[in-house]
């Protein structure tokens, strides 16, 4: 009986040992690369560009949050493959950082299943659940340790700051009584913008990147006549030099800017 039990155990081990292992699904990694341009030119801070109304404009800060980035499967159920819960994208590179600006901000995602996808979903801003947290909830290095506005109890979803030749005298004045600066800060749940970009994406084992190009000029497209006094289809930055959305504030400009990410971003 004892020998029989031992034989049974040995046979079982042999059979289990020879059993085919379940197929491991092949995986790959993916680089999401964020780049900024101004109507096709590499976007750099402190560089002069021309605003649609003809005046000189320069930027000194451009950053934003993205949340819940996912690939949408090509199959019938359109299943989502989550890529990024939240990240902070700062594209404020100056001329000494041209190479970094051209390279862009890279987010590497590992262990993605190979396959075909029909699009990519991106939330511009901080999704509502996370927007209830605060920087002090996180350790250093986490994307959500910065750009929180205590007065709104919200992260600042996007910051666009700079200055323009408001008085059309050919010079941009920064600082002092006649400063020509502008500041557009957008935040609070109301202006969160979730966009699905239809784009065929095939993930193979060659780790091809997805590049997301943002045309900063397009963030100023404005269909609201109240903020477009000269009627050129763009935000009138001379009259409306700044916005803080705020829980009780006017959401028109912040909503417009956050919605404009949909048309400002192109995917390669």
């Amino acid at each position, binding site marked *: 009986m004892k020998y029989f039990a031992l034989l049974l155990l040995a046979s079982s081990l042999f059979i289990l040992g020879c059993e085919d292992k379940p197929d491991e699904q092949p995986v790959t990694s993916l680089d999401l690369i964020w780049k900024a341009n101004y109507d096709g030119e590499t976007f750099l*801070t*402190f560089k002069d560009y021309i605003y649609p109304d003809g005046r000189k404009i320069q930027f*000194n*800060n451009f950053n934003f949050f993205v949340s819940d980035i996912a690939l949408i499967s090509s199959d019938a159920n359109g299943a989502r493959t989550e890529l990024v819960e939240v990240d902070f994208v700062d594209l404020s590179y*100056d001329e*000494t*950082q041209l190479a970094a600006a051209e390279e862009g901000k890279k987010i590497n995602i590992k262990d993605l299943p190979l396959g075909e996808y029909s699009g990519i979903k991106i939330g511009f801003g901080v999704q509502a659940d996370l927007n209830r947290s*605060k*920087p*002090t*909830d*996180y*350790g*250093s290095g986490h994307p959500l340790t*910065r750009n*929180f*506005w*205590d*007065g709104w109890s919200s992260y600042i979803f996007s910051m666009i*700051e*700079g*200055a323009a030749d408001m008085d059309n005298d050919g010079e941009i*004045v*920064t*600082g*002092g*009584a006649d*400063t020509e*600066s*502008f*500041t557009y*800060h957008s935040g609070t749940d109301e202006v969160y913008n979730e966009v699905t970009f239809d784009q065929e994406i095939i993930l193979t084992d060659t780790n091809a990147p997805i590049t997301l190009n943002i045309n900063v000029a397009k963030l100023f497209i404005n269909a609201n006549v109240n903020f477009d006094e000269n009627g050129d289809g763009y935000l009138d930055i001379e009259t409306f030099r700044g916005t*803080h959305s*705020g*829980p*009780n*504030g*006017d959401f028109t400009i912040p909503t417009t800017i956050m919605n404009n990410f949909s048309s400002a971003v192109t995917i390669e």
Partner: protein
Amino acid sequence: MSKNRKTNNLFIVFLILTTGWIWCISCSGDTPYLVLSPSTPPTPYELPQPWGFGKMEIPEDNPMTVQGVELGQQLFFDPILSADSSMSCRSCHFPDRGFTDNLPVSRGIHGTSGLRSSMSLVNVGYMDTGLFWDGRVMSLEAQALLPVADSSELAHQWSRVEWNLRKDPTYRQAFSDAFGITDTAALTRDLVVKAIAQYERSLVSSGNSRYDRFRAGTLELTPDEAIGYDLFFDISPEVKDAECGNCHNAPLFTTNEFVNNGVQPAKTLADFKDLGRGAVTGNRYDNGKFRIPTLRNITLTAPYMHDGRFATLEEVIDHYNEGGQISPNIHSLVRPLGLTEKEKGQLLAFLRTLTDEE
């Protein structure tokens, strides 16, 4: 009798040799390698975490202990760290002055003036973007190494500091208790700065300022303080936005970033008198930028800015209300605010709520 004499002679020879050996090692400049024994294992230090504050990140190689914090405090206040034993860390960081010295720029042991104002140490353990006005060092341990050897500060030599501490039986025991070292050769500058860093991390806001109690719901602000709070954080559209909270966000009242807040006029990026952050990064677009200081206990830390140019908070508010000085990379939010005298007073009333009451 002769046997006793022989014994006595041997004893005398032994005494002479022993004394001579001790004399030799004490005069040789080498360290007497005396065996130490920690009295008890160090006790973990429970760091207070005021309401709304996050968890401070403590380096794995320097966990806080009661003994370490006490030793750090002793060192912080001890002039043994200066070349002529006239100054200590406290000489530029007085606890009752918000851990500053109330001078435009700090002075060293020979009366030599430094370049910048001493920064508050309250909540310094939360500063994770670099220390000093220009962020040139990343850790409190690395920071504490510098003033001791700086000729315009404590102007000492670390080797002499180590020697003096090793000679002192009280310090020997305290280092043994704090770090478990068992021989004095292990009492090095690395442990000195670790202890000081532990003490500095313990300098956390009391959490009992009027602002903290207001946020905790146990106190109501006066009407002027409340409007100042609104001005500061841009809460309601009916009240102007003084743009303060963008850089001085709660709960630390600093974002720990580096900005040009328009205190130095500069026609070009090369024209700043003090390059600040730019001298550290080598990027000219960082010229004129300095670390945003905390506003906690701001009423105690005059004069203000990196060079102490403003004697009062009223002058600081006027500076921002007028839009700062012209310079190429000034922060966009430094622009004329249009605050009335009454609103400036209300903003000041709110700033006064940030003072710890213990």
